[in-house]
C-alpha cells in the first residue's frame, strides 16, 4: 500500500473513461457510414470492455487497484435497414444497410463517461486533500 495508490487507481479510471469517450465519439462519427475501410459492409458499433487491474493474489491484497481496458469489441446487434433506393449502397430491393449505431444510446453513453470521469477526478482530489490534511498534523 503506497502513498499514491488511490492516485494511480483514479488515474487509470481517468484513462479508461477517456477511452470510452473516444470510442463513443467514433461511434457517433460513423453513425451514417455504410462502408468500412476493409469493405465488410457498414460500420459496426464498438464498445469498451473494462476490467479490474491486477490479477495475482498479491495484487488482490494490496489496497487500491486500478482499472484496465480488456478490449474494444464490436456490438453484435444486426444493422438497421433503411429504404433509400437512390443511395449508391442500396441493394436490389432499395434497402441500405446502415450501422447499428443509435445516436440516443451514444449520447447517454457520452454523459455516463463524462460523469464517471468527473467521479474519478473527485476521488483523486479527495485523496489529495486527505494527504494534505495529514501533512497539516505536523504543522
Amino acid at each position, binding site marked *: 500500500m503506497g*502513498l*499514491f495508490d488511490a*492516485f*494511480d487507481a483514479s*488515474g487509470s479510471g*481517468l*484513462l479508461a473513461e*477517456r477511452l470510452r469517450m473516444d470510442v463513443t465519439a467514433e461511434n457517433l462519427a460513423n453513425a451514417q457510414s455504410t462502408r468500412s475501410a476493409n469493405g465488410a459492409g457498414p460500420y459496426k458499433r464498438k464498445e469498451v470492455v473494462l476490467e479490474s487491474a491486477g490479477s495475482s493474489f498479491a495484487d488482490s491484497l494490496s489496497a487500491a487497484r486500478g482499472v484496465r481496458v480488456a478490449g474494444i469489441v464490436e456490438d453484435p446487434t444486426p444493422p438497421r435497414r433503411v429504404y433509400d433506393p437512390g443511395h449508391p449502397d442500396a441493394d436490389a430491393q432499395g434497402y441500405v444497410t446502415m450501422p447499428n449505431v443509435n445516436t440516443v444510446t451514444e449520447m447517454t453513453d457520452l454523459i455516463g463517461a463524462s460523469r464517471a470521469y468527473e467521479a474519478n477526478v473527485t476521488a*483523486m482530489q479527495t485523496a*489529495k486533500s486527505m*494527504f*494534505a490534511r495529514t*501533512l497539516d498534523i*505536523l*504543522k
Partner: protein
Amino acid sequence: MTLPIDPSIASSASEWAIPSLDGATSEGAGAGAAQGAGSGFGSMLSDQLGKLEATQNEAADAAQALATGQATDPEAVVMAVERARLSMQLASTLRNKAVEAINDVFHTQV
C-alpha cells in the same frame, strides 16, 4: 548491604545509552551519498531526496512533453505533476519540522 536501587543502572542500562549517530552526522545529500550506502538516518535522507528529485524530473519531463505536443494523455502529466507537488510538500513539511526541533534544542535554557 545493597542499595534498593543500584545507582550504576543510570549509566549501564541500555535505555539510557545515547544511540550512535554515525549516519546522521553526514549533513546534506552530497555528503550522504559520498559516504556510501550505510544504513543510517543520513543515507535514508539522501535516498528520499534522490527519489524526490526523480519525481520532480518526471514532472518536468511530462510538462515539457505536454508543451511540445508529444504527450498523448494529459492525465499522466497531471498525475506526475501532482505526485511531485505532494512529495515536495511532504519533504518540506518534514524539513520544517526538523528545523523546528533543532531550534527547540538550541533555545533550551541552561
